[in-house]
């Protein structure tokens, strides 16, 4: 068990929350994207996290993103015949992004990020306290 394991576990949490924020912001940014490279409107994504060892001998696991999934949610059809992506009946398929949910997720990710940074801070302080034992 290395002194730095706690810091590394917190760092894995920071990286994970950063990814969660990235995905939430991509979902918000693409809330109105009606076309993608694979065709159809943008599909909102969400991240799946799982415990992951930070180093070979670590006593506790950190966290890692194992997958980014696109919950298959049907598009929201809006009548707008003048839109270039409108279908034969004049309906445009918009992604089913609930912006309020995404913002809530973003806030959760931001909170978790600062929580993990507090852990890293505490681990650092603990290491410095241990070093102080040897002083004088």
């Amino acid at each position, binding site marked *: 068990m*290395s*002194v*730095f394991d706690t*810091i*590394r576990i*917190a*760092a894995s949490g*920071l*990286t994970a929350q*950063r990814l969660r924020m990235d995905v939430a912001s991509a979902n918000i940014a693409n809330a109105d994207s009606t076309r993608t490279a694979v065709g159809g409107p943008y599909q909102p994504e969400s991240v799946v996290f799982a415990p992951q060892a930070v180093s070979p001998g670590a006593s506790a696991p950190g966290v890692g993103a194992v997958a980014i999934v696109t919950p298959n949610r049907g598009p929201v059809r809006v009548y707008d015949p003048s839109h270039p992506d409108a279908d034969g009946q004049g309906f445009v398929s918009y992604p089913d992004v609930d912006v309020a949910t995404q913002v809530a997720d973003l806030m959760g990710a931001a909170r978790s990020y600062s929580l993990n*940074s507090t852990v*890293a801070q505490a681990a*650092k302080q603990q*290491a*410095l306290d241990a*070093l102080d034992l*040897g*002083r004088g």
Partner: protein
Amino acid sequence: MAVIGPVPALGGLERIASAVGPGSIGGSTSTVDPPAGGGLGSPGAPGVTGAPGVNGSSAAGPGQGFLDTLGNAFGQLNQQLVGADASLADFAAGGSSDLHTVILQMQEASIGLKLGIQVRDRLLEAYQEIMRLQL
């Protein structure tokens, strides 16, 4: 940022021995005393041959010598510092690393360096303590 300064300076230090792991502190300090005691005991008669005796015992000691352990530890510290330096350079050049990864790596290197400095201080203290002994 503070970590970057010590990096070049550490090049020389590295040979002596520095970034000691967490367990090594207890191990190293406890190993400091026995060789010193042994060295002192043997040169009881001739002062000059005492030094070669100490050298011989540490070099031919069973398994790893104290200096080897210390050298490895300092090598590790140097790697930590070089790694922090590299990731900062990568970040500054627009690489893919996260800000917190760079910062935490620098913090780890900084703590490692502080630990190395403590070990060096203890070593110097022990050395000076022995040099002050009245024969």
